[in-house]
């Protein structure tokens, strides 16, 4: 009996405090994280330190925020493959808005978010209204957004951001990198929205049983468009952080990040086919990915192998999920 799906376990047993907070996390992902941390602590003398943990959090911030976007879309049985490209396009346009157009720095922030939301809107419209499968729509967006970013910049990074933007990426109040604060704030809001609001609930309802959602009067198409806008906007937030951290709008930023983000979501227990999703799970999944990459770096493993590792983890995570469900149905 698969009781490692904590929501199942809690439903049968007495109500725990964690259950009340709706922190349903797949226990395996925590286990994997713990094993990784222990193993790397033994393997590398540099791993177990506060500064390295802050490094991991900093590196995980962008992936994690993309992962939250992926979580919302996947909850409704969709997929967003354009996350990495939208990150790059929004970063590039955010950079150009203050750099080439000489507008005040807050415009960069607004531009990043607006570009992300707009890309999401297009994804959502094409998927929900034109009926093109999400896989294809967002794969197309992956190409178009990436290409647009290159066109706007001629393929060259746009350097030099105003100080407040640079602070957002490089500042360290209380010794903690700013992106980590943003990451935590986004995580809290995303968890709250997914678990406690009708918006989040309906995402999972649509992913679980679209016919039921329609029969119960949920406006499925509209909701789906909104979900893609959420994931697009979060890609814009990630683009902003990336832009701020490297002090440049880079059209090649976030290449293949969607792969890592989706892996984080699935690893965290979000069902690839919709209906079950957890922001907290994705947070753990993203930390696993962050720790993994950090560890491979510390152990001086070539980045070529890191790509392989991420791909392998994705397949493994989905396989674990399948095995779990097969057991659960028995």
């Amino acid at each position: 009996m698969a009781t490692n799906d904590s929501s199942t376990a809690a439903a049968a047993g007495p109500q725990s405090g964690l259950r009340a907070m709706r922190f349903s996390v797949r226990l395996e992902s925590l286990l994997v994280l713990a094993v990784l941390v222990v193993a790397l602590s033994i393997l590398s003398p540099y791993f177990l330190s506060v500064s390295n943990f802050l490094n991991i959090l900093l590196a995980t911030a962008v992936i994690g925020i993309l992962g939250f976007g992926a979580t919302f879309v996947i909850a409704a049985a969709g997929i967003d493959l354009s996350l990495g490209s939208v990150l790059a396009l929004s970063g590039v346009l955010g950079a150009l808005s203050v750099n080439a157009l000489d507008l005040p720095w807050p415009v960069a922030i607004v531009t990043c978010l607006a570009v992300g939301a707009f890309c999401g809107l297009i994804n959502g419209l094409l998927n929900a209204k034109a009926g093109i499968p999400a896989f294809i729509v967002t794969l197309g967006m992956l190409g178009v957004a990436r290409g647009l970013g290159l066109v706007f910049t001629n393929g060259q990074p746009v350097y030099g951001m105003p100080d407040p933007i640079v602070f957002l990426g490089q500042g360290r109040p209380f010794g903690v990198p700013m992106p980590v604060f943003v990451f935590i704030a986004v995580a809290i809001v995303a968890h709250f929205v997914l678990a406690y609001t009708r918006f989040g609930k309906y995402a999972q309802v649509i992913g679980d049983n679209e016919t039921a959602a329609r029969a119960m009067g949920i406006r499925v198409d509209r909701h789906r468009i909104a979900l893609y806008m959420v994931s697009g906007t979060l890609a814009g937030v990630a683009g902003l952080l990336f832009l701020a951290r490297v002090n440049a709008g880079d059209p090649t930023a976030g290449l293949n990040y969607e792969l890592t983000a989706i892996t984080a979501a699935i690893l965290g227990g979000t069902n690839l086919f919709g209906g079950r999703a957890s922001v907290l799970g994705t947070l753990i999944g993203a930390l696993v990915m962050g720790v993994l990459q950090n560890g491979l770096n510390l152990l001086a493993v070539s980045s070529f192998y890191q790509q392989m590792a991420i791909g392998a983890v994705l397949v493994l995570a989905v396989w674990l999920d399948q095995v779990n469900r097969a057991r659960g149905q028995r």
Partner: protein
Amino acid sequence: MALLELASISKHFGAIQAVNDVSLSLEAGEVTGLMGDNGAGKSTLVKMIAGNFRPSHGAMRLEGTELVMHRPVDARRHGIEIVHQDLALCDNLTAAANVFLGRELRVGVGPFRILDYASMYKRAGQIFAELKSETRPRDLVKQMSGGQRQAVAIARTMLSKAKIVLMDEPTAAISVRQVAEVLNLIRHLRDQGLAVVLISHRMPDVFSVADRVIVMRRGRKVADKKIADSSPEEVTGLITGAIERA
């Protein structure tokens, strides 16, 4: 005065006449069995009452006032609930979440409103108790038996002050013991003063629970009589066309 009255309702899809000039009335506290072969027009008729389709011709009156509906939500607002054949349940949600699907209770102010899980569990628990069902509000639907699933779908209709409950094949594909459970739920709804329409292919179910039977054939109503005045043999004849009209 009848609770719901259909006057010469017709529905055609292009050249296909799905429902042809059907008049009927539903009374409060009465279970009406709606029978007919596949394609006889039962589903189309019910879908018009549920607000899924608008009639091509004819009028519907609820408690004497003209009823015009554009979407299923309109029907719900008028106190007409439908229990879908596939039940429209979400496997990964709890029984309570399914009961409140689309009508979640929330607390908060303005746009900042969060789901009120505690109240939903409580109210769902009350409804299940009222239905004398053993379903627990916190159980996930995917772990439930067919009968419990029916109870969840029926519990939905009791959230609001429903007047009419339309049930599409509620006893298909469940075990004998569960059929008895579901029939009891239907009697319970009737005793609450609701009008229940039971679409079914199962003769024993209709004859055990219904007060009246309406038979459809090729889009027309061919019989509408008290169960006591009919027999399974007669209804079978009416469905197949061996008996023209009764």
